[in-house]
């Protein structure tokens, strides 16, 4: 009888320990502080955010203080924290251990959509820098048509002052102008490129065989939520899945979580290397 009671007690303790979930630790900047639950003085939005994460991840969520963003990145890489907001400079040294998972889209911004920079097939340019001093066509004045392509070019050493911009009505016209030889290159978003260059009839399998892509890339994120690369996919996807509808489901938590972003509209997923200059195939 005593043995059975002991066995039961061991089983209960074992189950309780097993069921206790690992805490999820968020690195924040300001002052160095050990990971701890939110204090009683936490603001309403901060409380809402931590409570939401705790409920949806079914584990305690702790706040870990670091002096600066580089320290937070290092702490994340060392495994002291699980998630942090990083910028490109802080991310670069810890790129091997960490990856971006989410960015914030501003209300008047396009998605971080891919941009295609292309020239006529006979052009010898092999990268964006080779277009310095030449004329580049853009497909419209919308954020996706102009601002995003210009950002991608500027990130690669081509600020607007370094080329002659020709802004057309849309991507179709910009590409037509390239074909007609009235511009040296185009920088259009991927959908505009696809509209013109996707196969419409098997008789013409490659409608843009006369053109050549020199760059396809998304704009680099200015900031991103970053996690360690070794976290399970399930946790990464659940973090994405709970952040994306936050502006709809928990506005106070969203306002806190996106405090640093200007005019935040929504969270968006991000590729692992969103904080570096990467190219797409």
């Amino acid at each position, binding site marked *: 009888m005593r043995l059975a009671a002991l066995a039961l007690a061991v089983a209960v303790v074992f189950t309780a320990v097993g069921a206790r979930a690992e805490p999820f630790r968020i690195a924040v900047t300001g002052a160095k502080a050990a990971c701890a639950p939110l204090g009683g003085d936490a603001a309403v939005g901060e409380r809402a955010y931590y409570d939401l994460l705790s409920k949806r991840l079914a584990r305690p969520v702790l706040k870990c203080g670091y002096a600066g963003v580089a320290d937070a990145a290092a702490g994340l890489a060392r495994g002291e924290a699980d998630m942090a907001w990083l910028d490109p400079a802080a991310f670069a040294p810890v790129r091997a251990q960490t990856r971006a998972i989410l960015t914030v889209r501003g209300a008047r911004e396009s998605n971080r959509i*891919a941009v295609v920079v292309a020239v006529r097939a006979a052009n010898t340019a092999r990268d964006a820098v080779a277009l310095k001093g030449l004329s580049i066509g853009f497909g419209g004045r919308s954020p996706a*048509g102009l601002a995003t392509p210009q950002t991608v070019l500027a990130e690669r050493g081509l600020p607007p002052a370094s080329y002659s911009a020709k802004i057309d009505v849309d991507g*179709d016209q910009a590409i037509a102008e390239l074909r007609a030889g009235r511009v040296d290159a185009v920088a259009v978003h991927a959908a505009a490129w696809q509209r013109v260059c996707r196969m419409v009839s098997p008789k013409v399998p490659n409608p843009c065989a006369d053109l050549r892509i020199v760059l396809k890339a998304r704009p680099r994120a200015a900031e991103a939520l970053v996690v360690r690369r070794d976290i399970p996919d399930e946790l990464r996807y659940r973090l994405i*899945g709970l952040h994306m509808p936050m502006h709809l489901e928990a506005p106070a938590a969203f306002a806190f979580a996106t405090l640093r972003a200007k005019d935040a509209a929504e969270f968006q*997923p991000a590729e692992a290397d969103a904080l570096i200059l990467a190219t797409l195939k």
Partner: protein
Amino acid sequence: MLVAGLLALAGCGERAPSASADWRGEIKEVKMAISGNNDDPQLVRRREVYREHLSKALGMPVRLYESSDYNGVIQAISSGQVDFANIAGGGYANVDAQVGDKVAPLLTPRQAEGETGYYSALVVRAASPMKSLADMKGHSLGYVDYNSTSGYLYPRAALRKQGIDPDTFFGKTSFAGGHTQAVMALANGQFDAAILQASGGTPETGFTRGPLRTLAREGLVDIDDFRIVWTAGPIPSEALVARTDRPQALIDLVRGAMAALPYDEPALWTEIGQLDGSAYTAVDRRHYQEIIDLRREELAQRRGGGRP
């Protein structure tokens, strides 16, 4: 195929919401219904690649149930026989009318320029004398399906807003049964016009996606043999919807894995038929309110004895 699949699923139906952290003990596989009416056989083949990707991402088997008609998907998600479904706005409105908040929209595609909608296009043969909507008076029209948003529900409401009664304006109307069937029936002269889905653009820019373009790429029709004479839209795009009685952790996991796809696997994203430069954005019921209201009105009118 779906019918057989759904019969096999009988009894799976509704579940009590789970508060358990160990939700994987309750869910052994994810069941997702998709409309298999699609006009592109290649797309159907690519879905297998998509299913494999999703299974890997979720860490559990994913079973896709393809329905050859809209109603199959609607009934599968309404009855709880599947956990998730990809469904057009009008289909979701129908589900909402049946089960309310037991099903909720999670994600919808957002295009490069920010649009989250698509269009209905009234299409005629290029050689047709019809140049405008007014020319269609007394002529025959093919709708896609009663449960089609772009091929029935939305254009009819848009016509009414323009002062045209779709039940009396056209000479004869009928359902083709799907977008592919509607294109082929139009090509064969069965109708004078058909109402089709058009996306990947606007009436101003032209469209890059839709059944006409898909069948043209397959070499089954020539895009130059058709002409758009009228459009209505934008219509809120299709949604990934979920049963809300499934574990929240599963819902978050599926939403995250699906939304990450264009970033994790950009080539696969376009291979499964999504437009380059598009990505998912989170939505809730409010995004589909207009369609929900239209469906309610349509149902009320149908009970009053409308056509077809």
